[in-house]
């Protein structure tokens, strides 16, 4: 199970990775979107939404916790930043909300035990060049059979080797 590593040079490129990923996601998929504040998690999900055909732009769900968007495939965008306990996450009822949607969970790595064991982890970080402020490293880690099976397709759409 190999992680894919990508470098993006601008928010536009980060968005482009999200848009490209839309080609391989299916209803029921879970994307765990990890990375510090400002790493580009929402930017990435915005690209994903574009790729899924969500007509209007999406906004960060930090305060609303979860937002749903109709696209070619429904997108449920969740942000765990304001949650402290697993109970609060379960209260969102994601299992019902996102059963037939693509679920993108910002900060999902803090609650990975409560999300589907099969998921794609997308980890964003600044760098590697500290002077290139807009550069980001993206690590895509397939977890579970269904994502490992899509690894080649994944590499192809995001243009990684």
């Amino acid at each position: 199970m190999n992680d894919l590593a990508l470098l993006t040079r601008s928010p536009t490129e980060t968005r482009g990775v999200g848009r490209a990923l839309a080609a391989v996601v299916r209803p029921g998929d879970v994307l765990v979107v990890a990375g510090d504040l400002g790493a580009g998690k929402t930017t990435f999900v915005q690209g994903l939404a574009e790729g899924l055909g969500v007509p209007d732009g999406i906004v960060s769900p930090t305060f609303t916790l979860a937002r749903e968007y109709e696209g070619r495939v429904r997108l449920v965008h969740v942000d765990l930043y304001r949650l402290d306990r697993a109970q609060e996450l379960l209260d969102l009822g994601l299992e019902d909300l996102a059963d037939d949607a693509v679920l993108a969970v910002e900060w999902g790595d803090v609650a990975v035990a409560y999300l589907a064991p099969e998921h794609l982890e997308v980890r964003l970080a600044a760098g590697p060049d500290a002077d290139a402020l807009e550069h980001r490293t993206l690590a895509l880690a397939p977890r579970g059979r269904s994502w490992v099976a899509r690894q080649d397709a994944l590499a192809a759409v995001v243009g990684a080797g």
Partner: protein
Amino acid sequence: MLVLAIDTATPQVAVALGDDGRVRGEIRLVGRRRHAEQLAPAIAYLCEQTRVRLEQLAAVAVGIGPGLFTGLRVGVTTAKVMAQTLRIPVVAVPSPDLVAYPLRHAGRLIAVVLDARRREVFHARYRPVPGGVQRVSDYAVGPAADLVAELEAGAEEVLLAGDGVEPNRSQFASLDRAEEAGPEFEVPSATALVELATGRIEREEFTSSWSVQPMYLRASDAELAWGQRR
């Protein structure tokens, strides 16, 4: 003695009205997980058609899961609120019991398997005994493969029931002494809940309406793993 029975642990909304253990009416709405929208109107319709006023209820019985989180919240909260406002007791019954009980004449081990999402199942095993079933395992959650391994080790005839069977059929196929109970035994039965609850009411086995809790099985009181990150 009138009892209202509610189970919302699966995508189904099930309500039944029992009178001394016999069912006067039952409503089952299957499939779309619209518990919040459907439960109260179903109760209202059932009471209206059976000409029962809520004030006449002697108890409310509720399936407490394990099952779908949102559904359980709706069912258990509704039961608690009704019990508290009507000042009547609650009878809490685990939902897998309500799948097993209608199979009490099956004459073999019964494995109840409910879809837990995230590619896991809730499961419990039962044996028929005179007048009902007796649970012979803990209520558990995990991959279907774990249950299959346990059943394989037991090497006995088993009847598989519940909505977790079909999505995991390929795994259960490796059991050569297993049979599926079929679609009519996929979800908890509100009729079974009336029957089980009536016995418990007669024995005064109530749960305080303040302490009734859904049985989630998955730990939910844990803190999220923020570490130093916020």
